[in-house]
């Protein structure tokens, strides 16, 4: 077992065993209908399942919306989120379920209702949550990979900005010590443990799935292992906080749900800052770069975040986690994604091979950051 959170270490062992499995065939609607009926047979007696439809977007889970009607006629829409055999991420449905439960009433989240973490009914681990109204991008934006280069526009930008900051501050100031999160482990041994666990987790994924031995990735791995900064106050890190990962009401600009918690962990929140400031998740219009299409550069974000959260951002740690995030991004798109596509272990191979083309952007940033040295 590698030195990381015990739940994640066990997950990494289990994924190795799946490597030799046959190609994954995406689930058809009628098969999902049968699985849902079996799942609910002894959970909601007399329930009727209807209106099953696949949900697009995202590159990690198979998702289906459906209506569950109880015998007294009450109908609710839900989302089934199920793991493919392999994906662009390696995450746990138990952890996602627990964290969504923990954040109910703190920030808007989809309410998690049921799960099948050991795939007793569904072919792969799955969870079910309430469907939340809203969109991830304005209707004026054409088909695109969700969250990459999404332009909110002036009106929505102004409405969303304070909510975005408020949510991020609440995530980082969350009292995880008193929360019910049995699948999470607290990094309390030493100030480097949280980030050491994080690096070990991603390095194991890199080693398991490596497709090409890019020399700059090796140098980045060595830099990350040799320069782990102290984390004096571990916080809840969302792990994928950016535009594209929240739903909003296009009319009012109200954020209705913060999504995609699957990569969250307890650690150094600088990882979230570096992630949301990344150019790949931002926009550049008329020469103006906006991180998450909201913040006009680092200073705009840092000032606003510090004011709202009361937390301070350390430029040296931001630099370290920028290296980490480009390294992680490369592993996601060009290692895990490409491996899943090559093994035909995913339902969206064509998206994975498309996303892998962002790999050189991450390599360019790694070469640039490692060349420039740490900020003084």
């Amino acid at each position, binding site marked *: 077992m590698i030195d990381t959170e015990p739940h994640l270490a066990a997950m990494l062992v289990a994924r190795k065993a799946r490597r030799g499995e046959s190609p994954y065939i995406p689930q058809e609607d009628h098969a999902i209908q049968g699985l849902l009926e079996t799942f609910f047979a002894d959970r909601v007696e007399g329930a009727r399942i209807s209106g099953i439809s696949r*949900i697009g977007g995202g590159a990690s889970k198979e998702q289906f919306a459906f209506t569950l009607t109880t015998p007294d006629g009450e109908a609710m829409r839900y989302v089934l989120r199920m793991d493919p055999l392999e994906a662009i991420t390696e995450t746990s449905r138990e952890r996602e379920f627990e964290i969504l439960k923990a954040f109910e009433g703190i920030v808007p989240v989809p309410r998690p209702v049921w799960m099948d973490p050991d795939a007793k009914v569904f072919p792969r681990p799955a969870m079910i949550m309430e469907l939340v109204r809203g969109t991830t991008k304005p209707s004026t934006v054409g088909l695109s990979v969700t969250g990459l280069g999404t332009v909110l526009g002036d009106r929505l930008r102004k409405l969303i900005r304070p909510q975005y900051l408020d949510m991020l501050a609440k995530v980082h100031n969350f009292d995880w010590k008193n929360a019910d999160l049995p699948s999470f482990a607290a990094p309390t041994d030493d100030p480097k443990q949280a980030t050491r666990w994080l690096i070990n987790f991603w390095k194991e994924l890199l080693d398991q799935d490596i497709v090409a031995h890019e020399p*700059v990735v090796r140098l980045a791995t060595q830099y990350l292992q040799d320069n782990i900064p102290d984390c004096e106050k571990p916080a809840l890190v969302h792990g994928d906080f950016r535009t594209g990962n929240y739903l909003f009401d296009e009319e009012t600009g109200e954020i209705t749900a913060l999504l995609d918690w699957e990569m969250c962990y307890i650690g150094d929140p600088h990882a979230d800052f570096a992630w949301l400031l990344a150019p790949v998740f931002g926009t550049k219009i008329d020469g103006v770069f906006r991180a998450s299409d909201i913040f006009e550069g680092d200073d705009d974000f840092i000032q606003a975040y510090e004011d709202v959260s009361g937390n301070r951002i350390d430029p040296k740690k931001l630099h370290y986690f920028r290296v980490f995030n480009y390294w992680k991004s490369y592993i996601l798109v060009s290692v895990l994604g490409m491996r899943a596509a090559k093994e035909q272990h995913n339902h969206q191979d064509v998206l994975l091979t498309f996303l892998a083309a962002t790999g050189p952007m991450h390599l360019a940033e790694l070469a640039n950051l490692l060349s420039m040295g740490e900020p003084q």
Partner: protein
Amino acid sequence: MTPSVPDRLASAVRALTYVVMPALPKEASLAREQVELVIGHLQITLAQYAQTPAFENQEADDFRELAKAVLSLTQGGDATMSAASDLRQTLDTTAGLPALEQTAAIQRALDDLLVALPEDGTREAKSAITAKVLEVSAHRADLDRRWFSLMGFDPAIAEIMQAEA
């Protein structure tokens, strides 16, 4: 030879764009997104098709040159020099192989050397090799970003290419 590969790809794009896509219901969001991606892949493959062999050869040549430069800078103990010997041998045995195979083998042997260096490489060698690897990695990343610029993810490289045109 008729039909050519570009002719076949172009006809597939037309079928997907004008027949398959309009036939998909609006609510089939995943299927629509997948068809868009397939069309995009085919269009970009079509645009890259003629240049692909040259691009792959250039990549193999760049990594071969990097490996030679790294070998000329390598100094250290047994682990480092053994990895260097393996890399030198890889350069010899892969010459003449298909470009993608050359690149993969050289990258792997170079990676072994980068792993050995912290063990017993000299400080000077580590520093010089790191600088060289970063220089070439930046160059290769620039070429790869240009190669994949049609994917539309990378406004920065698109801007540079536009300014150069």
